[in-house]
């Protein structure tokens, strides 16, 4: 194992962790431009120099797709940015996306050796740096596919799971077709995650690269409706299918007042804004109404995105209502931090009990109850318990519920033989195979709400498993003869 950086470990440790260049909070909470510009070259080089080039690079085990982090950082150190980008792409086809939205602090960075005593290497930011460098300098060269396998694989859903599976299979040489229900590609990356975290040009560029691998794409195609899974096998001639349809169906809390005008699921709210561009209304046609005061319920990434978007759409007050304490919030640390800077008011240990109407069937307030934390439950998190008589009313005109999602049942209910759990997720084995031959699945569809990088991991494992399955499967023709 060779070192490329001549500095002594003690010198490296003295270098401070480099911060991204960011728009200032008071300005950015009024626009949809990207919050963070990432690291510039000078900062990226300092950050790369911090890496200890460990003999045992534990960071790699922390990454769900096992990117060779040590090597790509060494390549950055040597200013071989394209080499670094290609190194990452061996394991992860969409680095510009992961570098932005991956919860690094709980994955690769949490285990980084440097992090034991100092701050960990900013692995995610370095990943983003090389991906952006490649885009701005227009240096991407699509991998050359030399092997062509005359077998068709269908991928259902164009979220991170589906896109990754499709890219990996196309690189091996399969004929891959993606079916996507919406008119835009990317799944949550397009309709859920706002532009100020993931600009559309970046997403479009990454999606285009999948097309450049020769992947065929049908948009506006709802599998289970436009064609069933069995039709894809029997009439379209696909020999394996990967399901990456996500967990897109919103759940509601079931409190009184949820049918009032002004109450949205986070999905509807974000879809209107991100996919349908309602923030440009009336230059775009889809309307959205955001009150002066907005309450968002939940503590995940979805809630953070909804509440930060509300400020950008002109809300004077945006509350984040969460029934546990801040420590328990599942959102990425960076997003919570950004939300706070932008002026979101956090109401922790608070649980909504009903939504209140004005005379016109519009929301005028939300009644909440204070909570306290009791004993830890099965998940190990301390269970919130309502404090009797602590009800109070917050005046708001918009309520957005971000309290969880479950898989859309269209495919499960139109396909025989798929084993579905009581949460509506599809059951798979360790190589993402479902209970039916030739059908694989992954991402939020099998995990419930999870993360982009875990969806990609599933897509990658499934691609390997599909390759193995199709390589071993006797040819239909030869079987007949």
């Amino acid at each position, binding site marked *: 194992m060779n070192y490329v950086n001549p500095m002594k470990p003690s010198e490296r440790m003295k270098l401070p962790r480099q911060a991204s260049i960011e728009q200032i909070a008071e300005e950015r909470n009024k626009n949809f431009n990207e919050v963070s510009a990432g690291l510039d070259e000078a900062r990226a080089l300092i950050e790369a120099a911090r890496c200890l080039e460990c003999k045992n690079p534990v960071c790699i085990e922390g990454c769900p797709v096992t990117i060779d982090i040590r090597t790509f950082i060494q390549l950055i150190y040597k200013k071989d940015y394209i080499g670094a980008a290609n190194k990452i792409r061996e394991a992860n086809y969409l680095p510009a996306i992961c570098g932005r939205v991956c919860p690094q602090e709980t994955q690769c960075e949490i285990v980084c050796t440097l992090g034991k005593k100092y701050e960990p290497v900013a692995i995610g930011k370095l990943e983003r740096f090389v991906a952006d460098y490649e885009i701005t300098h227009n240096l991407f060269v699509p991998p050359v596919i030399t092997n062509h396998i005359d077998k068709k694989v269908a991928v259902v859903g164009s979220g991170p799971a589906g896109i990754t599976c499709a890219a990996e299979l196309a690189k091996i040489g399969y004929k891959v077709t993606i079916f996507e*229900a*919406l*008119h835009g590609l990317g799944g949550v990356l397009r*309709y859920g995650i706002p532009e100020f975290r993931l600009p559309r040009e970046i997403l479009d560029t990454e999606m285009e690269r999948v097309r450049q691998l020769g992947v065929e794409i049908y*948009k*506006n*195609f*709802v599998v289970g*409706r*436009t*064609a069933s899974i069995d039709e894809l096998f029997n009439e379209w001639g696909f020999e394996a299918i990967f399901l990456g349809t996500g967990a*897109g*169906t*919103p759940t*509601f809390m*079931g409190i009184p007042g*949820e*049918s009032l*005008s*002004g109450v*949205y*699921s986070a*999905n*509807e709210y974000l*879809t*209107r804004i991100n996919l*349908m*561009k309602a923030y*440009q*209304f*009336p*230059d*775009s*046609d*889809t*309307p959205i*109404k955001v009150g002066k005061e907005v309450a968002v319920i939940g503590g995940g990434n979805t809630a953070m995105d909804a509440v930060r978007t509300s400020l950008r759409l002109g809300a004077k007050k945006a509350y984040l209502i969460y029934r546990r304490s801040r420590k328990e919030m599942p959102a990425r640390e960076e997003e919570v931090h950004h939300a706070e800077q932008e002026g979101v008011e956090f109401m922790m240990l608070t649980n909504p009990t009903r939504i209140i109407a004005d005379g016109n*069937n519009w929301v005028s307030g939300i009644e909440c109850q204070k909570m306290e934390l009791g004993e830890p439950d099965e998940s190990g998190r301390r269970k919130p318990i309502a404090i009797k008589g602590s009800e109070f009313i917050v005046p708001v005109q918009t309520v957005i519920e971000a309290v969880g999602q479950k898989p*859309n*049942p*269209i495919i499960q209910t139109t396909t025989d033989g798929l084993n579905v759990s009581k949460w509506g997720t599809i059951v798979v084995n360790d190589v993402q195979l479902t209970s039916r031959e030739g059908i694989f699945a992954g991402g939020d569809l099998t995990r419930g709400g999870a993360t982009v990088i875990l969806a990609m991991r599933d897509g990658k494992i499934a691609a390997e498993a599909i390759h193995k399955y199709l390589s071993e499967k006797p040819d239909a023709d030869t079987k007949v003869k």
Partner: protein
Amino acid sequence: MYPIVAKEILSPTITKYEIKAPFIAKKRKAGNFVMLRIVEDGERIPITLVDSDSNAGTITLIVQAIGKTTKLLATKNVGDSILDVVGPLGVPTPIELHGQVVCIGGGVGTAEVYPIARALKDAGNTIFSIVGARSKDLIILEKEMGQISKEIYVTTDDGSYGRKGIVTDPLKDLLDANKDIHAVYAIGPLPMMKAVANLTKTYGTKTLVSLNAIMVDGTGMCGGCRVSIGGKMKFACVDGPEFDAHLVDFDELIMRNRTYVDLEKIADERCKLTPSIVALAGGVK
């Protein structure tokens, strides 16, 4: 892209379109709808699949121009294309043998009930139909409905055609006179469906309505189309759009559908500024 292959004006505001969409044409069943988006940055709107021809690969839609998107569609001609068409969506109507059935269409709702009436007729039911509208020029598909019906009744609010009054008038007569009517299908404006539901409840006659909730995706992903059915939350696009009329909370839906009226007006005003739509808007009122 989904090219328009035929277009026919049925009334000053209602137009029939045949659109090339082979996958949808092959799978369409009575009761299904599509979501369509005409241009980049346009809205996604739900429209019922009136008919399809799987050999020609075409679907038939009948659309009333009432706001920005539907008026924009009205400016499109044969040879033009629609950007996105998704479907067939929704749960198809369960086609059962009830015996005698009343099918009611109010305004452009007639276009939505027609495919159901036809499927019910093909399944061996006897159809009585009632077609209603505000005035004569909004009555559509009278001939087509007549062809599949034992009897057809026409009503207009202003008396400009058929019987003056609303669809519940002939419906009441039919239910009084005919004890063998076992089901009623009604599609039209919400107040009409509500009136039908209230009437048939007193007779205990099974009644189905198709709910025009405001939809965004049409695939169960946003929950914007949620309606209350027997006190339970359902998503109209995936659990419906048809529901048992006697369980529907019509008042709630009527209120919810008003959510964007002011913004819809802004969008509509805007489209009047678009030269190609001015001509049409002049004729529309």
